[in-house]
C-alpha cells in the first residue's frame, strides 16, 4: 500500500475543509490509515488556507513534507502556485481556472501572475498540470461553491476507489438537501478529468 500525500490550497471560505474531509474519509473507506491537518476558524476568512491529507499504511505526521506531495488540488490559481514547494517531481496538480484577486492586487499594489506563468511555475517541479474550469462545472451542477468537489471528481480518476465509494462518502458528509447536487458536481469533475 503506497502512501499518497495531498495538499489542498485555496482561499478561506472556498470549501477546502469539506473537500479534505471527503478525501480523508474516502481514504479510510479504501483501507488506508489517514491523517489530515488544517487550521479552522473564521480567522482564516478570505486568507490563504491549505489542508494536508495523507493516506498510507501507517501515517505518522499529519503534515505533508516539502517535496513529497503527490497531488496538489488548487482551488484558486495563485494559491496553487503558493504551495508549489510541497510537490514531488512526479506530482499531478489539479488547478481550478479561477482567480480571486488578493486585496493587494485589487488595490493595484501587486500583480496577479498570468495563467502561463503559473503553469510554468508548477511545471518547473517536473510534474503534470491539469487545468479545470471547476467553478463553471460546479455552477452547471447547481452552485459554484462546489468547485472543490468538482476537483475531487477529476482527481478520483487517478487515486483509486470506484465512483460508488466517493458518492457514498459525499452522501455521508454533505447535508441531505445538498447531496444530489454535490454528487452531480463530483461526476462532472470525474468526466472532465484525466481518464
Amino acid at each position, binding site marked *: 500500500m503506497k502512501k499518497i500525500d495531498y495538499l489542498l490550497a485555496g*482561499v*478561506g471560505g472556498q470549501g477546502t475543509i469539506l473537500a479534505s*474531509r471527503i478525501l*480523508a*474519509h474516502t481514504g*479510510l473507506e479504501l483501507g488506508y*490509515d*489517514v*491523517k*489530515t*491537518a*488544517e*487550521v*479552522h*476558524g*473564521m*480567522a*482564516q*476568512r*478570505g*486568507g*490563504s488556507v491549505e489542508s494536508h491529507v495523507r493516506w498510507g499504511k501507517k*501515517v*505518522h*505526521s*499529519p*503534515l505533508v*513534507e*516539502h*517535496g*513529497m506531495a503527490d497531488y496538489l488540488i488548487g482551488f484558486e490559481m*495563485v*494559491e496553487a*502556485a*503558493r504551495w*508549489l*514547494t510541497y510537490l*514531488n*517531481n512526479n506530482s499531478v496538480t489539479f488547478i481550478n481556472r479561477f482567480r480571486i*484577486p*488578493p*486585496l*493587494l*492586487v*485589487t*488595490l*493595484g499594489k*501587486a*500583480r*496577479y*501572475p498570468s495563467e502561463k*506563468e503559473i503553469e510554468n*511555475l508548477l511545471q*518547473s*517541479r*517536473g510534474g503534470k498540470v491539469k487545468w479545470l474550469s471547476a467553478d463553471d462545472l460546479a455552477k452547471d451542477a447547481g452552485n*459554484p461553491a462546489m468547485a472543490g468537489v468538482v476537483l475531487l471528481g477529476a482527481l478520483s480518476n487517478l487515486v483509486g476507489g470506484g465512483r460508488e465509494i466517493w458518492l457514498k462518502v459525499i452522501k455521508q458528509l454533505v447535508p441531505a438537501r445538498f447531496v444530489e447536487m454535490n454528487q452531480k458536481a463530483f461526476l462532472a469533475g470525474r468526466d472532465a478529468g484525466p481518464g
Partner: protein
Amino acid sequence: MKELMTGNEALAYGAYLSGVRVGAGYPGTPGTQIMEKFASFPGVHAEWAPNEKVALDVGIGAAFAGTRALVSMKHVGLNVAADSLFYAVYTGLNAGLLIACADDPGMHSSQNEQDNRNYAKFARAPMLEPSDSEEAKQFAATALEMSETFDTPVIVRFVTRTSHSSSVVDVDPAAVPPPVKENKPYKREIGKFVMVPGNARRRHPVVEERIGKLREYAETTPLNRIEPGNDDWGIVASGAVYQYAREVFPEATFLRLGMVYPLPEKRIREFAGRVKKILVIEELDPFFEEQFRLLGIPVSGKDVFPIVGEFSPSLIRQAAIKAGILPAAVSGFSAAPASDIPIPVRPPILCPGCGHRGMFTVLKEAGVVVMGDIGCYTLGAASPLEALHFCGCMGASIGVAHGMDKGGIPDRLVAVIGDSTLFHSGLHPLINTLYNQGKTTTIIADNGTTSMTGHQHHPGTGYTLQKQPTVKVDLERMIRGIGFNKVDVCDPNKRDDFRKILEDHLKSDEASVIIARRPCALQSRERRTPPRIDPELCLNCGTCLDIGCPPLIQQEDCVSINEALCTGCGLCVQVCPSDAISQEEN
C-alpha cells in the same frame, strides 16, 4: 469501528465516556471545538463562560461537588485562568478535573507562542500531551483517573496540529458513560478548601509530596515509553513533534513522553544509558532539554532546532541535515524551482458587509489614536484600513487607552473592543476608566457574536452553548448601570451618523461609550441589491478601494463590483467622491 476525529473532538469524546458531566470554556483557536463537541453529548451541562478564569472556577466547583469536569481554553486563556489553576493545585478537588489547553506554535491565530508546559511546572500540575486523536481520547480517561488518584487538576496540552488534525479513533458505538452514581459527598474541610495563609502553608508541603508521587507514577505509566531501534541516536519527543520525528528518524530509538510533567528520572537515565547520543526535538522552549541537562545528561536540542515557530517534518529534516545528523540526499525531494514571479500575499480580511469596515474608515479619517483588542476587528490594523494602533491581549484596549490618556495623549483617543471581548475582560477596565476620572471614549464593536472563532454564543446573544434561550445581557443598560451617562448606539456602516456621534464623544470631557452595532455579515447573511458603478462617472480614483472591500476590483478604466461577493451594504456608495456608485433602495 474506526472514525476520523480531530484531537479536539476526540478529547471531548474521551471525557464524555469517562463520565464528565460538567464542561466550561471560552472559545479560542485552536481549542474551540473541544467544548463545542462536548456540548453535543446527551446528559451533560456545557457552557461558554465569559472568560477562562470563570470557566476554570466553574470546573473546579463541579469537581468540589463530586462531579467530573472538563475545562477548555487556548494557551493564552490559561494566563487569564492562572490564578485559579494555582489555588486548585493547593486545594485539590473532590472528583476528576481535566483542563484541556491548546498551544499555538507558529501563531496561526494568536498574539504569542508561549509554551504552556511551563505552567505545569510553575503550578505543580501534572501535564499530558497526546500525539494524535486516538491518544487524545485515551488521555482524557487517564487524566481523570490521575486527577482523582492524586487529588489534583490535570492539564492535557494540545498544539494546533493535534487540536486540528484528524486521525483515526477507535469508537465503540455501544459505549456509554458510567451511570450517574451518587456524587462523592461534599464535606466542609476548612484546612483543604480555605486557602488562608495558615491553611495554605500546610497545603504547600502536600503539593510537593504529591509531585514526588507523580514522578514515581511517571516512571511506570505507559504514557511514557522507550521505543527500541537503532541506538546511534536516541530521540526524545512528545505530541505532534513525536509524529514528525517518527517519519524523519524511522529507525532510531525513541523516548516518547506522553506525560510531559513531571518527568521520569530513572527512565531518562535508562534511555541515556542505552543510546550513544541524544537528540531532544521539541517545539518552542527547551523544556525537556533543561531537565536532561539538570540530570547531567548531555543532549543536542536547541543547538539544532529553532526555539521559535512551528515545527514540521520538513523543518526537522532540514535542521538535522544542516547539523550533520542526517545525510543530505532524500529521494523525491528537490530544491524549489528558481522563480522570479512574485506570488502576491493573501492575509485574512474583513468580510464584505462587515460593520468594522465602516467604523475603521471613519476612525482613520478622524485621525484618532485607536487602542484595539482581540477579534476580527484586529484586522483594522492592516492595509488599506490602517486604523488600529495597538492590539495586545484580551481586554487590554480600554485600560491601555486610559493609561495613554493619563500619560499624556489626552486628545482624540479611543478604545475599540468587541462584544464578546468586552464580556471576557473589558468590564473591569471600563469601570476603572469611570472611577479614575478618565475621559476615554470606548467603542464596543458589537456584531452580536464571537465571530473570529466561529460565531459562538456569549452573555449578550440570548442563547447558551447548548442552544437554550437565556437572559440576554443588554449592553447599553449594563454600561449605564455601571454609571456611564454618555452612551450612544449606532450602525457604524452609516458613516455620517457614526462620525457625528464620534466627534461629539471626542469633544466630551467625560468617559463615554459608543456601541457600534451591526450584526456579523457572515452570520446574518443579510443581502441587499449590490450597488452599480456608472463607468461614465467613475474616475477610477481608487477612493472606494481604500475601504478594502473584496468585491471592489480596479479595472483599466473604472472600478467594478463582483456581485457574487457583494452583500450590498452600501459602504462604497458613501465614500465615492464622484457619485459614480449608486444603489437601489430595497
